């Protein structure tokens, strides 16, 4: 991103809140078996998939919405939500994407034409609008390397064996209330398979856009990295500015085989609602990866600036010996946003190691909670964890909370936890301003300093975006 774009980004409020003016096919609100059949039918799915969906739905009906998170919201009426909405044109042919959608993605800075590249770097994009993937770029080029990069809907039809084997293998269909809901009604998302020994030749990414009113987005992503392979995957998202809350309940599953590495980065910028807590996305997401094979590695990096409520815990199951799990997070809550986020590191294999770096920033009336679990299994000899949870407060109406949990049968592991809470002081701001740095820049300088370790984990072009986004998000939160 060029400096002027960064500058532009700093001068607005939520600036991705436009609506794409397209005709959409939207199923009436409500959830029942017919709706699930409708979704499955719309996607032309094989029978086995529909059966799994219905099974998940039956389980979901018996489950209760979790209440342990440190977030408050009015009860969600699951029958007032529409579970499928798709742009009318351009679903069948990749070449016939509605120009208005192309234009919208252009406005979001996401190139859907292969010749346009993000910061001069080739990035393959899967573009999802509401319930469908509208375009996937570079699929052909990737195929030459044996890499499968397509929408999950296509994968269900074209690679049923892979999907059957791995879907629900990391996040079981009834893992939790929202995961079960997703398993029943998931609409689109991305599928990635990296074959043995292949280093994916470019960054892969998905950009999720909520557009339709009163519609939930339930995407499902599955990434499988076979032995000795490597992939770096990034996801971004945004939604229109609206007074109503919208639900986004996604599931992401990662599988890393022996010697494989998956680097998963998220820049989450769903509409956050206004300062009174009106509107915004409920972001209730289940993300989990399994380091199946020895010496495998899964690294989650997230920059969470949007959503009115965030409930998400990207986790790693470290099953293979010597496997490595990492979680790097910046979560910002300003306005009236609430975030309850963190990770779980489940050490099962020997000499497994995990690192957790969590940076929570709260401003205005924002409430930020870190919730993390480190679990050392009975056979995880030599397991190691390092956790660092830092909170930064801007102003005095916001809050930060930290809940680290440790479960360890014996003292066979080595666990270190550090936590700090700091407040940007007026004296610090004044010092920088006395040197000629304006107030906004002074705040962002302090905030960036605070987030440095996490940003350095992002791929370069996304790090620039994350920085700009952070500035935009915290604009006007001081003074």
């Amino acid at each position, binding site marked *: 991103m060029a400096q002027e774009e960064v500058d532009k980004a700093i001068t607005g409020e939520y600036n991705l809140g436009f609506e794409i003016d397209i005709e959409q096919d939207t199923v009436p609100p409500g959830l029942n078996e017919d709706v699930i059949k409708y979704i499955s039918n719309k996607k032309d799915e094989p029978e086995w998939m529909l059966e799994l969906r219905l099974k998940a739905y039956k389980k979901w009906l018996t489950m209760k919405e979790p209440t342990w998170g440190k977030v408050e919201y009015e009860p969600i009426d699951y029958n007032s939500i529409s579970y499928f909405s798709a742009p009318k044109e351009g679903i069948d042919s990749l070449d016939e994407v509605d120009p208005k959608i192309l234009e919208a993605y252009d406005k979001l800075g996401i190139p859907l034409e292969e010749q346009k590249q993000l910061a001069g770097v080739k990035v393959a994009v899967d573009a999802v609008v509401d319930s469908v993937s509208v375009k996937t770029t570079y699929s052909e080029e990737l195929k030459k390397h044996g890499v499968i990069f397509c929408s999950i809907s296509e994968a269900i039809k074209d690679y049923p064996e892979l999907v059957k084997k791995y879907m629900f293998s990391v996040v079981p269909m009834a893992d939790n209330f929202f995961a079960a809901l997703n398993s029943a009604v998931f609409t689109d998302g991305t599928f990635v398979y990296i074959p043995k020994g292949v280093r994916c030749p470019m960054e892969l990414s998905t950009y999720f856009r909520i557009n339709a009113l009163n519609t939930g987005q339930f995407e499902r992503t599955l990434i499988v990295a076979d032995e000795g392979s490597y992939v770096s995957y990034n996801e971004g998202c945004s939604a229109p500015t609206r007074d109503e809350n919208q639900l986004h309940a996604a599931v992401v599953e990662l599988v890393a085989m022996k010697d494989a590495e998956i680097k998963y980065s998220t820049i989450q910028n769903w509409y956050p609602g206004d300062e009174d807590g009106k509107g915004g996305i409920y972001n209730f997401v289940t993300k989990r990866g399994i380091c199946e094979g020895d010496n495998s590695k899964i690294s989650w990096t997230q920059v969470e600036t949007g959503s009115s409520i965030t409930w998400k815990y990207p986790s790693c199951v470290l099953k293979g010996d010597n496997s490595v799990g990492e979680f790097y997070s910046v979560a910002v809550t300003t306005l009236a946003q609430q975030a309850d986020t963190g990770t779980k590191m489940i050490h099962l294999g020997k000499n497994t190691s995990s690192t957790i770096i969590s940076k929570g920033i709260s401003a205005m009336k924002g409430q930020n909670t870190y919730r993390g679990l480190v679990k050392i299994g009975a056979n995880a000899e030599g397991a190691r964890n390092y956790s660092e949870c830092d909170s930064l407060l801007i102003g005095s109406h916001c809050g930060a909370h930290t809940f680290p949990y440790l479960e360890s049968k014996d003292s066979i592991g080595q666990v270190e936890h550090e936590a700090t809470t700091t407040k940007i002081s007026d004296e610090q701001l004044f*010092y920088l*301003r006395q*040197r*000629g740095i304006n107030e906004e820049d002074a705040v962002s300088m302090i905030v960036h*300093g605070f987030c*440095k370790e996490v940003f350095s984990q992002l791929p370069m072009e996304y790090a620039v975006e994350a920085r700009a986004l952070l500035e935009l998000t915290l604009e006007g939160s001081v003074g």
Partner: protein
Amino acid sequence: MSKVLKIKDLKAKIGEKDILKGLNLELEEGKVHAIMGPNGAGKSTLSKAIVGHYDVEITDGDIVYKDKSIKENEPEERALEGLFLSFQNPVEIPGVNNAYFLRTAVNAKRKHEGKEELNAAEFLREMKSKIEELGMKKELINRSLNEGFSGGEKKRNEILQMMMLEPDVIILDEIDSGLDIDALRAVSEGINKMKDGKRSFLVITHYSRILDYIKPDYIHVLKDGQIVHTGGPELVEKLEKEGYESLGSL
């Protein structure tokens, strides 16, 4: 002689407490003015008032800098126009890289003056030579701003910023406190090199020691929120011998 900074009948308070009680002071271009006075007299409050610190509420009077009243201006505007304060107690800012901070500040000022910004290489070259002049530890430049610096290191860092920012009016609030003799010498040399016949200095201290190194042109005595006496360098010796009480009030 042109007066670059004029403090006119300045009354100011911190919280509910009146601290500056009708203070008058004029700084001449190119001269070194020293302010001396007992602890609690209002010296730091004066320096804060000049640079627009949020603690200080001006209730009466005016601050005129380069012929314009600046008492309503934002701190960064005053800074960009060439006012610099070396803080008595510089604050620590974790996570903010010292060199990065300083380059941002230098470039903000250059931009304000319509000059090209310095690229990283140009900036580093400049900064390195100044660090050597100051006898400052090189590693300090890649640390977080002032974090874990010793008292002397913080003061050297203030002087480094002063040298890089090339201000027009430099206020040094007790730059000498907490410095050993070598540090005092290095810091004073840095300050003396900045003298160019145009730049003005306001050296605030309550020890005369630093005035052996930075030769003042004028001495002002601040007591109970007012300048009670102004004289030449010879006043230092008198104050040293007889104390502030000898001067009585205005």
